[in-house]
């Protein structure tokens, strides 16, 4: 039995200890907003926040997460998709297919939480998620817009 704090709710799940957090979230807890894209920490589609830091959940075994640690997934980032990053994304129509976007948004929100006013080169260096539809320029503009809104460090 594994105990996890996901989006403010304590969950108890049955999973082998080496099961990646990603698959526990998706299959045992039913939070499918967190995506599988590579399984080897390359693409970032599986990004969630662990105690406020962006982690690639495909490469975090569930046994490495303590019950006290706070996991936030895309579903728990905000109440009505009103996190500044989500609002900027909506304003700029960032997503294309959208499959990478949960990870993009979570990575961007974590970046702004740590660095509310990142420079362009910091954004380019820090956001290493893959988007095959090629939304990068709008991702960049979205992060800058969220930062300008002055609430970037929220959540």
């Amino acid at each position: 039995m594994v105990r996890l704090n996901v989006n403010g709710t304590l969950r108890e799940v049955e999973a082998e200890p080496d099961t990646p957090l990603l698959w526990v979230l998706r299959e045992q807890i039913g939070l499918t907003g967190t995506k599988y894209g590579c399984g080897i920490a390359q693409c970032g589609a599986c990004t969630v926040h662990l105690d406020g830091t962006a982690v690639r959940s495909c490469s975090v075994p569930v046994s490495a997460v303590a019950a006290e640690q706070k996991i936030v997934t895309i579903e728990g980032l905000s109440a009505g998709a009103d996190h500044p990053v989500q609002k900027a994304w909506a304003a700029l129509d960032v997503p294309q297919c959208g499959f990478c976007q949960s990870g993009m948004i979570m990575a961007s929100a974590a970046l702004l939480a740590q660095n509310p006013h990142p420079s362009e080169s910091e954004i380019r260096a820090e956001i290493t998620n893959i988007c095959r539809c090629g939304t990068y320029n709008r991702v960049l503009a979205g992060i800058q817009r969220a930062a300008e809104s002055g609430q970037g460090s929220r959540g």
Partner: protein
Amino acid sequence: MSIDTRPGSAPAPAPSPVRPSRRGFLAGAAAAAGGFSLGFHLPGTGEAIAAPAGAAPEVNAWVVVRPDETVVIRIARSEMGQGTLTGLAQLAAEELGCDWARVTTEYPTPGQNLARARVWGDFSTGGSRGIRESHELVRKGGAAARMMLIEAAAQGWGVPASSCRAEKGVITHAESGRTTTYGSVAAEAAKLPPPKDVVLKDPKDWTIAGQPLKRLDTRPKLDGSQIYGMDLSLPGMLNAAIRDCPVTGGTVKSFEAEAVSGMPGVKRVVQVGETGVAVIADTFWRAKTALDALPIVWDEGPNAGVSSASIAAVLREGLDAPEAYIGNKAGDVEAALKGAERVVEAVYSVPFQNHATMEPMNATARWTPERCEVWTPTQNGEAALAATAEAAGLSAAKCEVYKIHLGGGFGRRGATHDWVRQAVLIAKEMPDTPIKLIWTREEDMTHGRYHPITQCRLRAALDRNGDLTGLHMRISGQSILAAIMPQRMVNGRDPVTFQGLNPSGPEATLGYAIPNILVDHAMRNPHIIPGFWRGVNMNPNAIYLECFMDELAHAAGQDPLAFRRKLMANHPKHRAVLDAVADKIGWSTKPPEGVARGIAQMMGFGSYVAAAAEVSVSPDGKLKVHRIVAATDPGYALNPQQIDAQIAGSFVYGLSAALHGACTVKDGRIEQTNFDTYPVMRLDEMPAVETIIMPSGGFWGGVGEPTIAVAAPAVLNAVFAATGKRVRDLPLANTDLRRA
């Protein structure tokens, strides 16, 4: 904080992939289809959708107006990120004259299309045809619905329809000042016969189409609620992981199911056709874990000795082969070469590329001896239905495919439905149990439908003035059609190979008038299966032609833009986009210190496109692409801000391949297994992209694909300008750009 102690594996109810609007539609469509049950279950609820009382009837196949004025527009083509859903809805809404703020959309299913005599036309979404091939059908659907709604209102008032008009969903009879709404008369309109003569608006009067509107499908992509095929959850569903023989053409010799059958969650270990083995378990992770531990022995078959080197040798032989299919021929090229002041020659090559859609292939299937249903992300629901019926051993009328939102398509999810076949074969092993098959990224990378591999030898004749008098382009290599659509070949020839190099036609014409020309194709087909990959053959052809034009300009001591323009007098649309990018990048001015420029143009998918790039290369050989200016003339521009997104996106896709991507072959199999060995472009490399959208009207070209082709040659030509190094073997990563 609340504590959830539900037993471990009960999943929280997944959000529904179906908008509520679908309820009414499915009920209506089931009736229209002769009453057979569609058997659709809302994921996570287990409830079949029953016909809700008072559901709004459709006005026609394209339009439903609900009493609350919500307008549901039905979209036959697939949304995979390219904005087709919004674009087609804009067209229908334009003719319908409804309030855009109240528009929502839904997908009809291929089975309904079949049952209704293909009322929605072709479902195929590829070749940038989503909008350009269905715009008329969709617009007529919207216009006919408007006429019926107005007619219904007019009849109610006892006035002629011609005295009424409609705007934003409100119908007005000016004389009497009476008004009503679409929602109020929709039920009456639905009873009327469809109008015979439907007149479409002149695009210059558009107010919804042509506008840079926001996409309709963004919101659920912001909070994780958008359901993709991989996210589907059905009551009682199991999960499967598969391994297909790593060598195409090989088969399963044996596997030891007992070695893994006791592992957690494992239900069954099954062979899939001749070539694959799958593990079915309660969760995907457990299925995959068991599959990884499963000993499988392959018979690798006749291709086990093939390598990239052996394929290259076969293609090289084709460069000089006496026999080749002709794609474009005028004058006498050999005579021109003999009489030339100077002959320039070069050989280029492009490798296999994987689509690497962000969401790996997946499908959920449920099979019984009477019926088979499949839920899958597909670019072509009808082709998916055909694949389902064949694998199920049932008639198409006993099968149905539900299209789930695609996590990228790029051509991988259209022409072949190999993963659907697998899912159905697996489902047959456990009748009446829905089973979701998910490919790992490794399976996806090694079992793609790859961008075809080709080489090209170009030989050109320059006269005393440095003018181009003859060009021979010999393409040697793979044909997509020969492998996956032989029925579309023309006398053994694959016309797609010549994309962008054709002498004439509305689709992909060569933009240069060259007095003596021969473009021919020595078909050489390796065993690796090719497919349509965003941009298709326009990609290599643009690199071959446009990099070589650059070589010729330099050989002739001429400016690359001026050299091209001299050949383009008969091709004003090609020249207009080229001029536009040259102008915007400042071609006639000196670039900033350390920066070099390149330029390219091409026509494909019915659109004229050009790009100009600014790059720099550091002394240690690192390329930086600073800026790309792109121009496109797609005839009509349905949604400029989405075209802008498509162009920037296509550059990422095209440059990922041109700069980094190559799928290589060793021991008969693809060597690259994930993004660590198949690198793609990320934000750190992304250049600024400026787009010029210059629709000249009178034709409908694509937007999702054509521009992709010009990014690579523009950048490669700029690399030459920066370094003097000509990149001819793609990807660029194969060339050492360090200063000697």
